């Protein structure tokens, strides 16, 4: 048997949930957990373009667009020029690889063009 107090708690929770669901319909966006995690992480987003065995730094926003256009991204830890990179995004075995550190990958997944993977 649900007590009156328990009903109150349920109803307040449902009212709060209704409010959270109403906000996006009114065009109000709340920061996501991913954005909060990114903001708290002190590391910088980093990206390298790898062509054969050569690596070059790429501005992160351009890198994210190129990575979003690749077939897939997978976890692959690599140490390049003394820094760790955690993700590799590419289309084929012989194609350009966008290498991202964890913060860089998280940053990219928050971009509007990232899409579903």
């Amino acid at each position, binding site marked *: 048997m649900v007590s009156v107090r328990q009903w109150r708690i349920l109803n307040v929770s449902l009212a709060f949930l209704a409010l959270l669901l109403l906000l996006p319909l009114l065009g109000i966006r709340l920061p996501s957990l991913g954005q909060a995690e990114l903001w708290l992480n002190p590391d910088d987003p980093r990206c390298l373009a790898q062509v054969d065995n050569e690596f070059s730094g790429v501005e992160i*926003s351009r890198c994210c667009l190129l990575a979003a256009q690749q077939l897939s991204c997978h976890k692959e830890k690599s140490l390049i020029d003394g820094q760790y990179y955690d993700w590799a995004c590419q289309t084929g075995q012989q194609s350009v690889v966008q290498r991202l550190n964890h913060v860089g990958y998280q940053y990219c997944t928050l971009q509007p063009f990232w899409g579903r993977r």
Partner: protein
Amino acid sequence: MKSIFSQNEKRVVRNPVAKKVPPKRWAFHIHQATFLILLLVVLLLASANIAKAKGFFIPEQPAPLVQDGIIAIQDLTLEQKLAQMVIVAGSTWNLQPIRNMQVGGIHLFALGQEELFPGAIQQFQAGMAIPFFVTVDLEGCLNPFAAFRLFLPASEVETVGEAFEKGAEEGKYLRSLGVTINFAPVVDLDDEIWKCRSFPGDASQIGALAEAYILGLQNEKIMATAKHYPGKTLVARDPHKFLVTATVGASDLVPYQEVADTAQGIMVSHIIVDGALDSQGLPSVVSPGIIQGLPEQFSGLVITDEINMLGLRSFYPTLDEMYIAVLQAGSDIILNFNDDPNEIYRMIQIWKEAVDSGLVSEERIDASVRKILEAKGLQVVG
């Protein structure tokens, strides 16, 4: 005999055996009813959110009247005309809202199997009175088909003949899939980052190779797009900075002058430039001076680089201001790969308000839409 009860006490005890529901039971019923109502509200709001995410609230535009390949521009609503100026990411999960909005084109990212490309393209194109542009970034080094087909990187092309053959081979392949525009060739000098995206040689040699490539590609009915105007996008710089600045020299513009009367498209970048061209502190894509500074003999489509990149987005406090600035600057086609179709629809509505309020003239819109429809093979009247 006097009653031991006062008048007040008599009122209270008038009906001592009447049945009354205890206050606690009423509260219980109210909470139950409230719970059911709130549960219903939450379910409705959740359904509305799902419908919105899928673009169900984006209205379908009326079918444009196209007869024997002829279309009258005045038969298109302002919203339809503005939508023609947008190329979006061709995600099949956004198929219906993209078709409903009748945007100008779809851009395809890498897929794992060759047959997925014509499959997706057919889904989008089926029954459309005005066909979509279908665009890809096939440069050779960057290649959305790399999972099953490789192409020669531009950096390995040595002669004009090879450049033409590369264009013809890629054009034939793209046409077989249903693609209509290739965002290539890259004609920037000094590819310090990838070292494979640009043709080899000095400015003049790059211009000649690019022109040959364009001829080969367009011979196969695929529109070429020289990029990224006004140059300097392949030069290594501080990867932490979003706003990119560069000094453009006269040599950076040489390839664009070489291809201006051949290329059917030129893509403008977000770089803030000075030197041979000055964007006045603005990203090039929103600088009217840069857009108008394109070579005189160029009569093709001016296409923006993707507008959600921070090189442009971080220049403006709000998206609305950015959308209006991009439209005001004068490009014919705007690339917006935002995966949320509601945001694409919102951008079109913002543009519509800008035209209605006089910030952007409808004549400017009509001029771009005319070029777009003609590039799609339609005859435009009116």
